[in-house]
């Protein structure tokens, strides 16, 4: 008897839950998925926000039609949300849960990205592997463009960034940005992109100081940057042999090791020793690899080149007082009672040494 009463009670509870309840559904085809978002300056204190979302067409039985990209833009006052404004013109609810890329024009980035990134960070809907990028010129222009390879700019960019993260380029996404922005002894960096006809091109690595964009490393030096930043396994680099010829080296593995002498010669300032070990092979060559261009000679030449470029890069960073290579953080891990302020004072004239070793395993199937 009591058992029945209990069952009845639970059943009643469940039924009443069913009737009153239900979370607000967000059915995937009844929402407008914002996949890319871009910010430009419109004029003083006004932003031009642009979003794109895919529009799929019905497939019933006849395979998938290529999707179209729906682009909407709106001018908002700085500090207000773009999505909320755009609701007024979208057919369905705008949902940022599948956001793939977020673009910021270089002008916006120069004034600081934090307030924009904070929007992404706080919202649990947004994935942490969302790609961020800085655009040279207008972000809207990139989002509006028609591209041959993929009808959706969001997919195009996200695939491109994903490919680059495994090839030549350090991985960047919302997580790395937040990590580098918040961490002490490090500064964030993001890819810098530009529209070129029917394609979007990565033109370099945008460097930040805090959350402000200051300069960039050109794409040709991305390999060197990556080599100093992390150990990685795939990349390629071209070594000029003379004015007209070059050799292209494919990377098998690159190992970087930071050693810090916490108390340098003067007993106060640390010495940072970076050693890099490159393993690779020759993929393309414009000349026969003999004599002057034999493998051992090539190795030396390459090591010298990489070392030179690396040192130049570090010097630039010092001059810009930005630390994308996280040298400060490396020093911190060797030093007790490290302070960021003291380090930043010392950084521009820090003693940072670089040593590069190169080993070429083979030269392909011909010589």
């Amino acid at each position, binding site marked *: 008897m*009591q058992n029945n009463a*209990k069952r009845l009670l*639970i059943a009643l*509870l*469940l039924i009443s*839950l069913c009737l*009153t*309840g239900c*979370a*607000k559904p967000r059915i995937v085809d009844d929402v407008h998925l914002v996949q890319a978002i871009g910010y430009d300056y419109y004029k003083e204190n006004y932003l031009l926000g642009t979003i794109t979302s895919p529009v799929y067409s019905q497939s019933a039985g006849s395979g998938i039609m290529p999707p179209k990209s729906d682009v909407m833009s709106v001018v908002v006052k700085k500090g207000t949300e773009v999505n909320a404004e755009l609701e007024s013109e979208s057919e369905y609810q705008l949902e940022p849960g599948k956001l793939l890329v977020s673009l910021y024009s270089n002008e916006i980035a120069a004034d600081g990205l934090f307030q924009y990134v904070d929007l992404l*960070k706080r919202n*649990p809907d947004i*994935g*942490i*592997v969302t790609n961020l990028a800085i655009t040279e010129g207008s972000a809207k222009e990139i989002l509006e463009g028609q591209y041959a390879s993929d009808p959706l700019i969001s997919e195009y960019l996200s695939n491109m960034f994903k490919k680059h993260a495994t090839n030549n380029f350090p991985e960047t996404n919302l*997580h*790395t940005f*937040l*990590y580098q922005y*918040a*961490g*002490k002894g490090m500064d964030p960096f993001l890819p810098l992109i530009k529209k070129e006809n029917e394609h979007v091109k990565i033109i370099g690595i945008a460097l930040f100081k805090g959350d402000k964009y200051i300069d960039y490393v050109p794409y040709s030096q991305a390999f060197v940057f990556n080599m100093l930043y992390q150990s990685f396994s795939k990349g390629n680099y071209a070594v000029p042999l003379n004015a007209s010829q070059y050799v292209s080296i494919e990377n098998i593995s690159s190992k970087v090791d930071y050693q810090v002498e916490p108390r340098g010669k003067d007993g106060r300032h640390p010495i940072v020793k970076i050693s890099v070990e490159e393993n690779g092979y020759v993929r393309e060559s414009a000349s026969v690899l003999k004599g002057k261009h034999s493998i051992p000679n090539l190795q030396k030449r390459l090591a010298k080149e990489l070392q030179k470029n690396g040192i130049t890069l570090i010097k630039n960073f010092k001059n810009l007082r930005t630390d994308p290579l996280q040298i400060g*953080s*490396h020093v*911190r*891990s*060797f*030093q*007790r*009672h490290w302070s960021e302020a003291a380090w930043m004072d010392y950084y521009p004239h820090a003693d940072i040494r670089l040593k590069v070793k190169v080993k070429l395993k083979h030269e392909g199937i011909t010589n």
Partner: protein
Amino acid sequence: MALEIQENRQVSPYVLFFIIYGIQTGIGVINYQRPITNSAGYDAWLSILIMGFIIFVVMWMLTKLLEEHQGDLITIHHHLFGKWIGGFLSFLFSLYFLTMSITVLNTYVLLVQVWMFPQMSYWEIATLLSIVAYAYISGGLRSIAGIAFLSSIYSIPLILALIAPLNYAHFDNLLPLVNHSVPALINAGKQMSLNYEGISILLLVYPFIKKTESRDNRKQWVFYATSMTTVVYLVVYLVTIVYFNPQELDQYLWPTMSLWKIVDLPFMERFEYIGITIWIFVILPNICLTLWGASRIIKRLFSLNQRIIVGCLIIFIVLFGYLLSNQVELDIWNKYQSLLGLGVMLMYLPFLYFYNLVHRKMRKSHAKQR
């Protein structure tokens, strides 16, 4: 006056492992990283070890007490403080267990609201969860032990998912080692009391564990469980701090959830949603055991029907929990809860142990005098 439990209501000794492990890994695991890091920086993993050791000692004391008195919390209180005071203290413990279940229930409801269903009302989530909890509690300790066991199996994917953040690991975050003072480390350890406060359930569960005539291996499982919990906390913490830097970690309210965000499976993105879903199995043993404990004490004290007590308690915690259904209030509640837990765990339980020693001596001398 040993407390006898019917044999078919008893459970095997190894189950004690899962009960103790289950009650220690609950709602605490998703956000213990932040407070301890605030106190001891990235040396806080040492605090976890220290805390693990302290809990080890407390557990040892509890098993000693239980073995001497051949019963549970109520018997111990009764022996040491007499019927009325002892009974009153036991009743306070019942309330203590009740507060714990409120903490767990509310934290989970908030978690679901923040991460999955912002529009869903407190009532809906809490009622559904309490129906599930009732289904287990009404099966007695055996089914609660079952869910404790199964939950530790179900949570294996959650622990495996922690491999993915290691792709973004910065191992030099750990260096330099031991950059903080011992008081800071201990202070950090204290911040973890919310994680460990369930251990007092041992005082009620112990008589339910089968022991064979030949050997009594109940104790060893308690210690295995404590070690296991320490290892899990340590592993989760290490993964957290190589993935986040301290300044970043300070921003995240639920670091463990944020860790899962990085997991991208080919057939399913955004592992944190799976994480929250599976998390229900991690908190179920907590809610069930604490509610069972609270109702068991009342049953033992007042000889009421436990089924009815559990029903009433569940309705009570769902209603009471509504008062704490937003972040600010819950934070305050959790702060006091954690203080209370600290007091019970590190003051009252050791006090009970030492008082028992004194009491025993007094009894002996008393007996001699006669």
